[in-house]
């Protein structure tokens, strides 16, 4: 009798969103690792809604590894989990990370099994690998979930299935990460205010240029036009208010007058305060 090989098809349709702060923390932890260690592992915290797992925080868990066994500091893991719970009670353990590239080995399966006891989701803990070996030209980050393989009744092992992983930007983080990108590695100064207004405008003009080129291509027949894109562009343009020159002049003048008034007022108060300091009137009684 031939036993059937059971390959369950569940649990493969989730996506993982990772916040950039998690990846930066993993990099930092990798740099600070002990000399004898090749890699760093730790716990991922986040939230899990249907089909989407969001990883927003992480912490490192010390571990020791040898050829055939792996020991993880459970006390540390539990303490850190409690501490994090006090700050952000809504974040639960969603998985673990490690910084190796290359293939998975048996110790990974053991750690995965350990974490599956803590994660309550049906697809088990999510495993995030950040390849820090720098063998390729980038730092690929991939995520896996595991499922058990069984031959009839006998469990064979564990299979890691890759699931799509995305770097999630909240809008504030987008400002943060673009700040980090634009920071000069030597000087590292955050960009000045005037520059950010100019970069916003350049981005806007670039977008408008792309949209315009697309429309021209479609009109000239060089490209297939997509009706939904065309409708969307038309709707967006319709939002721009068309003002008569006189109405615009009035709006412009009122706006500029308001701003001038506020600016004058702010300067007035400021100079009043400086003057009071020089004259020492703050310490004198009101008559």
């Amino acid at each position, binding site marked *: 009798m031939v036993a059937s090989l059971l390959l369950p098809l569940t649990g493969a349709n989730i996506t993982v969103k990772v*916040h*950039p702060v998690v990846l*930066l*923390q993993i*990099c930092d932890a*990798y*740099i*600070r690792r002990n000399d004898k260690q090749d890699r760093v592992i730790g716990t991922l915290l986040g939230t899990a809604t249907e089909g989407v797992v969001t990883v927003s925080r992480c*912490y*490192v868990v010390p571990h020791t590894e040898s050829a055939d066994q792996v020991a993880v500091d459970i006390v*540390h893991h539990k303490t850190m989990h409690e*501490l994090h719970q*006090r*700050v952000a009670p809504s974040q639960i353990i969603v998985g673990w990370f490690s910084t190796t590239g290359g293939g998975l080995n048996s110790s990974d399966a053991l750690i995965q099994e350990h974490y599956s006891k803590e994660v309550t989701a049906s697809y088990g803990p999510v495993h995030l690998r950040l390849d*820090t070996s*720098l063998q390729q030209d*980038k*730092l690929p980050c991939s995520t896996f979930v595991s499922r058990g393989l069984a031959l009839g009744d006998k469990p064979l092992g564990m299979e890691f299935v890759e699931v799509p992983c995305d*770097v999630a930007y909240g*809008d*504030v983080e*987008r*400002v*943060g*990460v*673009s*700040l*980090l*990108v634009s920071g000069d*590695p030597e*000087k*590292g*100064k955050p960009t000045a*205010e005037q520059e*950010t207004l100019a970069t*916003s*405008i350049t*981005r806007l003009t670039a*977008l408008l240029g792309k949209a315009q080129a697309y429309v021209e291509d479609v009109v000239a027949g060089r490209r297939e036009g997509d009706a939904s894109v065309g409708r969307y562009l038309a709707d967006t343009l319709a939002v721009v208010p068309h*003002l008569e*020159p006189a109405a*615009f002049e009035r709006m*412009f003048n009122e*706006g500029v007058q308001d*701003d*001038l008034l*506020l*600016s004058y007022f*702010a*300067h007035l*108060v*400021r100079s009043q*305060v400086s003057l*009071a*300091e020089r004259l*020492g009137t*703050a*310490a*004198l*009684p009101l008559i």
Partner: protein
Amino acid sequence: MTTVADLLKRPDVKETVLKTVQLDGQVVLKIMQHCDGAQPSIVTGQLLGLDVGQTMEVTDCFPFPSPEDDGDSSTNYQLDMMRCLREVNVDNNTVGWYQSSVLGQYQTQEMIETFISYHDSIKKCVCIVYDPQRQQRGQLGLRAIRLKDSFIELFKEQKLTGKDLREAGVGWRDVFVEVPIKIHNSSLAQALIADLNPAPGATAGDLERLSLANAGYLSKTMANLIECMDDMLAEQGKVSMYHRNVARQQQQMAAWLQKRNQENIARRAAGEEPLPEEDPVLFKPIPEPSALDQYLVTSQIAGYCDMLGAAAEKGMAKMYLVQAAQKAAQH
């Protein structure tokens, strides 16, 4: 009279002046994540790092849980967290704390007291103030603040009356000092960030920056400014009250002295011992009100004026841009 310039020129034998605060990329993101998640309440956290000469390097941070009634549990939290972080080789020195603020309102007495309590253990502690509203408007909302040394000395000796502060040459500008921030990343993190470059589409930050509608922000700042003015008037009221009390006390003393003199004349005429002419118990010297609150209010007013002026000027620049775009569209 010593001026502030003299105090600064005094040679620091052991300590160097703090010139920049260097933040790690992950610290910036962690602070933003914590403060934004907790809006609109104010949250705090601890900064860890190293003090290297003229730069303060902040390499890690962790958030504090919301203030609980039990003071012990929060110290336990801190100790546990530091111990766990030490096990994974994170820099274990506390170099300061961070807090979120609402519309730039951070100059309070509590901040000064926290600084002083930190100052006992760390000479150069720094506070990072994060303003989520400013970050939403597309600018960097982080500032590094520390107290000026001359002010710290005065505060420790509790010599905060108007006269003492004038003598020491410490004006309201000299309470808080802003230190420039530098952002620094390890090479690995830089490689990661280069990989992570967000798509060049427009972001919400762009939308905020290009938007002409800053009326809400301006009106809120104005409201805060007006509140500060009221506080200022209250402080002035206190000073006037003090002067009035002192004048009244002088009058009372003069009247009492006169009465004593007359009694003494009568006594000398009767051949008895004259009574003493001074009676310290009756007239206690009235304490002068501390000028610290005034300083804080003035410095807060200055901060608001700067913010208002900058926002108004940016608004004008945007209006002129729109006008130019409109003119170009008409031709």
